[in-house]
């Protein structure tokens, strides 16, 4: 029999009491209000099957660390599925607080992440109770709030430096009676009385470690696995796969085919990662993927195609530009037309087919689009027919140009 620990765990919904042996965890859910006193946590249970864990020494910055330099800590990866070693969850033991005011009690908190680097929960070893600045222990509500705070990736804690955290004389204390030290944060972003704990733990949970974990998982995942994740995984897994492809410079027809499929499915949440990946490919390959979508009905995708073309230094494939120009007649967005014409203008194209296609826009229902095409064509060399159309448009709309 091995000694086992009882551990308090907070997830977003509940407090959990974890009976942690040397390998197996079993959970007893405790709803707020029923949490036993911390002193009652000491417990032991039968050890289960040994859990495979690997340790990684990782170096990263933490904004509350007074040294200002990188710190080195051990990140543990748990392997639960021998067939998918990249899928193990992670944990790290961290100090509860990098104290800003030199009066803090420091406990060890275990933070947990999934294999995609997403913070999941924290746990404490009994009989530890986190403490607030006024030397009071955290209440159940405080633990719940802490879990909410740490789970909020968009927290105001993200952008603050440690020096900005506390306002020692907020709002004019020295001249007109606004009382007390306070913090420059929304109240939803911290547990009252435990601002430094929240700041410290949030940056462990959501800071550089997230990227390090993703890369560790990515390194453990073979290319075929990443392809499979892109093909059939959730959005988060597909985004992870795309980022790892980009990071590792992986490029294959299989990947580009999968990306094409994703674009066909119109999954806009992946567009940013797809765009970033395509930007890293040789232009020829990137274009090959995107040209399929010159005539797409998806406005977001069209904007992505235009943005991709805009950032190229060399002249894009004229055929693709011609396709886009032909298709533009059915676009209803002035913004897209504006971008297309700006793209054509930036390359000073002299192409009769493209100009003919643009001249079709003179009949667009949206007059602002038609006028935009008019002024573009006025600058471009036009055929006799185009010239005739332009003249007709100009005369008909003389007062609106």
């Amino acid at each position, binding site marked *: 029999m091995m000694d086992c620990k009882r551990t308090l765990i907070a997830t977003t919904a509940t407090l959990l009491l974890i009976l942690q042996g040397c390998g197996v965890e079993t959970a007893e859910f405790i709803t707020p209000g029923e949490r036993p006193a911390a002193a009652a946590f000491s417990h032991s249970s039968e050890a289960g099957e040994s859990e495979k864990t690997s340790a990684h020494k990782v170096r990263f910055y933490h904004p509350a660390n007074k040294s200002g330099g990188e710190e080195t800590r051990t990140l543990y990866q748990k392997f639960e599925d021998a067939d998918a070693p990249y899928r193990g969850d992670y944990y790290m033991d961290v100090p509860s607080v990098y104290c800003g005011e030199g009066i803090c009690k420091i406990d060890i908190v275990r933070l947990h992440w999934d294999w995609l680097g997403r913070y999941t929960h924290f746990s404490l070893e009994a009989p530890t109770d986190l403490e607030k600045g006024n030397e009071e222990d955290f209440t159940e509500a405080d633990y719940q709030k802490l879990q909410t705070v740490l789970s909020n990736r968009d927290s105001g804690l993200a952008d*603050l430096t440690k*020096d*900005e*955290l506390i*306002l*020692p*004389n*907020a*709002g*004019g*204390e*020295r*001249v*007109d*009676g*606004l*009382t007390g030290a*306070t*913090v*420059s*944060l*929304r*109240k939803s972003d911290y547990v009252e009385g435990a601002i430094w704990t929240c700041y410290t733990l949030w940056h462990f949970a959501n800071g550089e470690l997230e990227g390090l974990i993703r890369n560790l998982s990515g390194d453990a995942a073979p290319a075929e696995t990443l392809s499979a994740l892109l093909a059939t995984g959730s959005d988060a897994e597909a985004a992870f796969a795309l980022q790892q492809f980009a990071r590792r410079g992986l490029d294959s027809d299989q990947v580009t085919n999968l990306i094409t499929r994703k674009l066909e499915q119109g999954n806009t949440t992946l567009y940013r990662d797809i765009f970033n990946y395509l930007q890293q490919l040789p232009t020829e390959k990137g274009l090959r993927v995107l040209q399929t979508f010159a005539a797409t009905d998806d406005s977001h995708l069209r904007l992505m195609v235009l943005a991709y073309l805009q950032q190229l230094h060399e002249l894009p494939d004229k055929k693709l530009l011609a396709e886009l120009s032909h298709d533009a007649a059915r676009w209803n967005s*002035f*913004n897209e037309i*504006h971008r297309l014409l700006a793209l054509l203008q930036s390359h000073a194209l002299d192409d009769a087919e493209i100009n003919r296609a643009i001249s079709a826009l003179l009949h667009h229902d949206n*007059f*602002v689009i038609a*006028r*935009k095409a*008019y*002024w573009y064509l*006025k*600058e471009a060399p036009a055929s006799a027919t185009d010239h005739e159309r332009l003249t007709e448009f100009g005369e008909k709309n003389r*007062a*609106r*140009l």
Partner: protein
Amino acid sequence: MKRRNFFKVGAAAVAGTTLVSQSAAAAGSPNALISDRKEDQWLHLGTGKSETPVRHREESYDVAVIGGGAAGICAAVSAARLGRKVVLIQDRPVLGGNASSEMRVHLNGVNRLKTGLAERETGIIEEMLLHNRFENPQESFPVWDHVLYDFVIREPNITLMLNTQGIEAIMQGDRIAKIRCWQLTTETEYLISAPYFIDCSGDGLIAATAGAEYRTGREGKKEFDETFAPDEPDGWQMGASLLMSAKDMGKPVPYRAPSWAIKFDAENAHKRRKFDAYHEGIWWVEVGSDDDIIADQEINRHKLMGYLHGVWDYIKNSGKFPESANLALDWVGSLPSRRESRRFIGDYIHSEKDLTENRHFKDAVAFGGWGIDEHNPGGMENIHMAPTIFHAHFDEVYQVPFRSLYSRNVPNLLFAGRNVSQTHIALASSRIMATCALMGQAVGTAAHLCLEQNVTPREIAHKHIDALQEQLLRDDVYIPKRPAKDPLDLAKQSAEIIASSTKSGKPALLTDGIARDVNEDIHHWQSAELPAEVQLEWADPVTLSTFEIKCDTNVKRNIMMRKDSLNDELFNNSVPEEMVKFLSISARVSGKWQELGTISENRTRLIRFDFPPVKTTALRVRVTETYGKPTVKLFEVRAYA
């Protein structure tokens, strides 16, 4: 706390006790002139002539503003910029009121709501504070005086009269016809006539001598259903403070208190009489009054000087502050900074529940949000009590109605600042200078509209309030829950607004009428990078001669000058890095882009381009540089013929 003053005073009642009689003054008799110099025996050695000095002048203006603090400056500048000839009369040698180098109170505003963030005032007050960021990075109070001086005298329509006190209103019926002023430095009497008068002087002597109704003291709970008011009304008014500052001499410096020092009663002092950052002044060195606080001012000033030195003596010589050994007083105030005296009565009296229940007013023209910060009655003379009680803090800003900014019985009198129509408890929040400044801009703008429409302020409140609010919104005042809907704004008629790249918000939000993000609601467009462009397209040509932009200056972060020069998430001691620095605008004319204007060192949130009328179908803004941010955030664009 024995009695309450509720004055309904005729002009003669006030003026008769101190100055010439109302009837004589009203008659304009030369005998009434203070500057009657007929008895002088002046031999002019330069010319050899014996003459009579003429030191009496009569002048006329469109608007007369009395008081050169934040409220008065904003009132004068707003009316002047709208084309009115304005005189700004200030009884001190410097502008700035409580924030001047004579008193050195921080120019606070909505510094911090319960959200933890500021909700900073924009409009003229912000422009003043930004001007200070450029001209006074050293954060010197005497230089700040000159920054304000520059801010005022650069307005061609303002005549500034310093060292000049408005001492008496001369009435014609129930209206103020003229005011009698005395300029101390030139021994000159001025009679200033104007159709509209704005009293921003704090104590409001002119308004009082005009017979404008006012009250002093604390209302009882019942009158306005105020939770924080005393059970029964009384005469207490919050006191004035006297500040000081000390510097480190690098070696121990002894201090001996002067003869008039009043020993600090540390034993009985309330524990909240804190000594944080005492080297920058202690705001609770304060004395109030439960009767005629104006009559008590010189007595209180003397007491305050005694208390100030008594507290400093305690710091230096009690042994409890060993770190003060090297400190020596560097500046001591002699002019107490006043919080409260007369409160003039308007068509509406703003009170506690208006603030705490966040009541909506159709005639809202300003906002506040400092906590209800009621200072201890008596100040240092109630040493055992906490120096202030913050009765409430706010989740969001509250509105100030225009009806509390003009007199209910003197039809051409407006006011702004701490002397407006409000209860003692409401004053405990709204007295903060940036809030007063917003009121100032509102009444200055209202005076312009009164002239334009030939109406009284009351008629503005009832018949032209939309026009007043629209002008204020255009001039970058934020009125909570009142989006702009100016029918003359041609940007709202544009068919398309597009932008080069977007990080957050949407280009279409630039014409939604709200020029700041409110709580979680976004009202901006932010570029992903710089340079960045925004383009407006109209379906039919429009003729434009003005284009206005409201850019980001981060209204969630304070920019007032502070003695401690704080620079953190909430207080900034430099030019906001978000603000646009370099931008240009172009119009498309006959298919060609034509540049209309470029600003290379923009200094304001409201950026205005005026240009010869141009007929166009598209206008483009190109922002090349901010004061530090790699992106640009805009809140509003407007276009006018």
